[in-house]
């Protein structure tokens, strides 16, 4: 690997201050440090550090989404890859530009956002809409707040929500069944909403249904979500309370109004609920940091999801519920902390 390293060393003068390509220094640094870890050392105690860094942290999230990704490509063909590519190119450009303007380093978060976002879209989404969505999501969901770690809303969901509202027709009609190019509008959720048809659970589990490209293969999502929890990258509290609440409320609702509230297992295995609960609600930046806050976050998300699914004009409520609860995250944390440290304040 030495020739590659010396090549990078040779290119470095172009990017230093007063170099010709100084503006692109963040991009060069990102490329260099992705290939070769910097040899930076600790200066203070602790003199030895844990091997986990943000690159691997984000890499593990992507690894956990691989089953969904592979299933998406398998089910909906190479067009999926084009959607992901568009998402990465546009999202990456926004990230690089902002890093260059801010003169800061490029953060790895966009690698996750750029993958989550296309996986939540219907298979027939035009590529330009994918571009618009990720542009809006990264720009107004993350960068304007000050970049990684400072955003209030999950950037992928901000983008998804923007295009859902801006282009309602393609976002609600361009579904496809796996292995077929025929456009259908019948996802399991809409089938229940309009005709109270319950798709067989086996089909739901294996992803033999219409739906967003990454959210139909539920076995893969469950495996990926459990993997994330086992590696401690995501916290189990949010998925547990989220899914638990959905289960309980839909169980009660289904007993009372079986035509409005779908049965609990169907709720959990259809639509984007598992994908949202495993990969999006658990985003550490936009979810509460306190433990009780996490439980509350999950409970409210579950509550909102079932209510929107059953009672609103929208078929799916996962996206809205997570974004709404993102807005309440600081408040939840504030309440929990002020109760916990009440005695100290007095």
């Amino acid at each position, binding site marked *: 690997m030495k020739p590659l390293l010396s090549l990078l060393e040779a290119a470095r003068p172009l990017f230093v201050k007063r170099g010709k390509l100084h503006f692109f220094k963040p991009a060069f640094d990102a490329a260099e440090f992705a290939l070769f870890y910097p040899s930076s050392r600790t200066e203070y105690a*602790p003199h030895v550090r844990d091997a986990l860094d943000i690159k691997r942290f984000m890499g593990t999230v992507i690894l956990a989404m691989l089953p969904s990704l592979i299933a998406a490509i398998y089910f909906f063909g190479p067009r999926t890859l084009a959607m992901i590519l568009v998402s990465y190119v546009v999202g990456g450009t926004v990230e690089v530009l902002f890093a260059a303007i801010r003169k800061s380093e490029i953060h790895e978060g966009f690698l996750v956002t750029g993958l989550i976002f296309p996986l939540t879209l219907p298979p027939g989404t035009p590529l330009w809409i994918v571009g618009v969505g990720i542009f809006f999501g990264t720009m107004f969901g993350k960068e304007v707040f000050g970049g990684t770690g400072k955003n209030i809303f999950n950037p992928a969901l901000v983008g998804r929500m923007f295009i859902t509202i801006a282009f309602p027709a393609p976002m609600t009609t361009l579904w496809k069944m796996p292995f077929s190019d025929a456009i259908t509008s019948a996802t399991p959720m809409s089938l229940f909403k309009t005709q109270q048809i319950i798709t067989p659970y086996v089909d739901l589990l294996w992803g033999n249904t219409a739906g967003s490209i990454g959210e139909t293969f539920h076995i893969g999502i469950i495996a990926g979500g459990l993997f994330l929890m086992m590696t401690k990258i995501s916290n189990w509290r949010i998925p547990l309370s989220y899914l638990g609440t959905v289960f309980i409320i839909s169980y009660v609702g289904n007993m009372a109004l079986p035509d409005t509230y779908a049965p609990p297992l169907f709720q959990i295995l259809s639509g984007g609920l598992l994908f949202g609960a495993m990969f999006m609600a658990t985003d550490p930046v936009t979810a509460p940091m306190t433990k009780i806050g996490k439980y509350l976050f999950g409970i409210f998300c579950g509550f909102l999801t079932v209510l929107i699914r059953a009672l609103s004009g929208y078929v799916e409520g996962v996206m809205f519920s997570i974004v709404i609860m993102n807005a309440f995250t600081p408040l939840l944390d504030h309440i929990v902390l002020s109760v916990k440290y009440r005695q100290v304040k007095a």
Partner: protein
Amino acid sequence: MKFKGGFNVRLRGEPSHSIKPLPQCNTLELPLTSTRFNFSIVLVKPGELVFPGDRIAIDSDNFSLPLLAPCKGTVNLDLKGKIIALESIQQMDSTAIDIKKDMPERYQSQGVFGETRYTLVRLGAWQLLFDTKNGSVPDPLDKPQTIIVSLLSLEPFSLHPDVLLKERLSEFIHGLKCLYSLIGDKKIYLILPNIKSKSIDQCYNDLYRNNLIRLVKVPAKYPYSEPEYVAQALPEFDNSPGSAPIWATSVEGVLAIDQALTISHPYLHRHIALGGPACKSSGYVTAVCGYPIKKIKENIGIQGKVRVVQDGILRGKKVDENQVGLDTECQSLTFIEEKSNRDFLGFARLGFTKQSFSNSFLSKIVPNFKEKATTGLQGEHRPCVTCGFCESICPAALLPHLLYRYIQKQRAEEAQQLGLFKCISCGLCSYVCPSKLDLFKTIDQTKKELSTVNKKEEAGS
């Protein structure tokens, strides 16, 4: 007692449990400053001949605690470099010292109580005691709630008390009895691991019958071995402001107290643990203050670019390359290779050779895996993503990332409300942070700054 957080950093190169001799040397260079002490008043003149146990300097800020001459030798001063050198030294058996000769009025007026306390101060044993609240030296005439003695040491590469106990168990038990009467017949708290061990059982049987001690059994997980932690976690201790302090000492401290009170010998020879991944022949040595570090390095075969860390890799300090001799507080020296190579695609490695608090490396499935650590940062600095690792590892149940955020925004008061002073400075938050933030350094510094401000305010009012 509730345990929260904590983590054992498992690294290769723990010191082997053998005590080795060190070669003789001709010159000792005693640094006048160390982490807690600043021996600013020098009592000797250049060319003066000193004998083991003589006072050669005192720390006027810390109750005039003395720096003792470890050997017979001729004084040479380098006050700019803050060093007292002892030249052409000769090893001599230390002898009993008459302490009554120069006992200050402050101690004399307190009778026997003052005399015992002054013996410990004069013979160098007092500096092995510390206050669990802030790690400072306690006032020799103060009366504590109790004393905590830890029989455990879980920070990697630190001095393991078992090594001392194996040889000097009876002295240790006697020392505990001295300690018991020293603090006014209050029970001493012994921290033990909740595992079976022969020397511990023996110690326990003897002391328990005497009603001297209370046992605190903790899991063998860092930092439960630290008295600061136990002082905070045990409900029977009074931690409210204004309460009597809780003191702590090590096994070495108990032995020094025993030696001072029974045979009036000064505490001069200390045990030092030598270990670390770059140390080829690890072990323990007995050395005196001022012994040249270079000679220790030569003796155990250290080559190349190696960082020397004193008193633990999680909390200790880097030994300055210009520092020549051991300072008066040194308990362990750890040798770690300075990181110089760059890993190709480091973040995507399977990770059979990397240790992590998270389970995202395959070393997790390797039994008894220990990492060969370097001083590499293992990543780049990034903003905090609130991953919560620091919170789940924090033994004091704090939110280190939030404290850090408040301190960065100059809102130290809010940080104080969130329990800044409960921090026991274990260093685990920084160790685990994937964004490589200097949480420990920031929190620790702010704590120190605030406590000096508070002290000044108290003194002012």
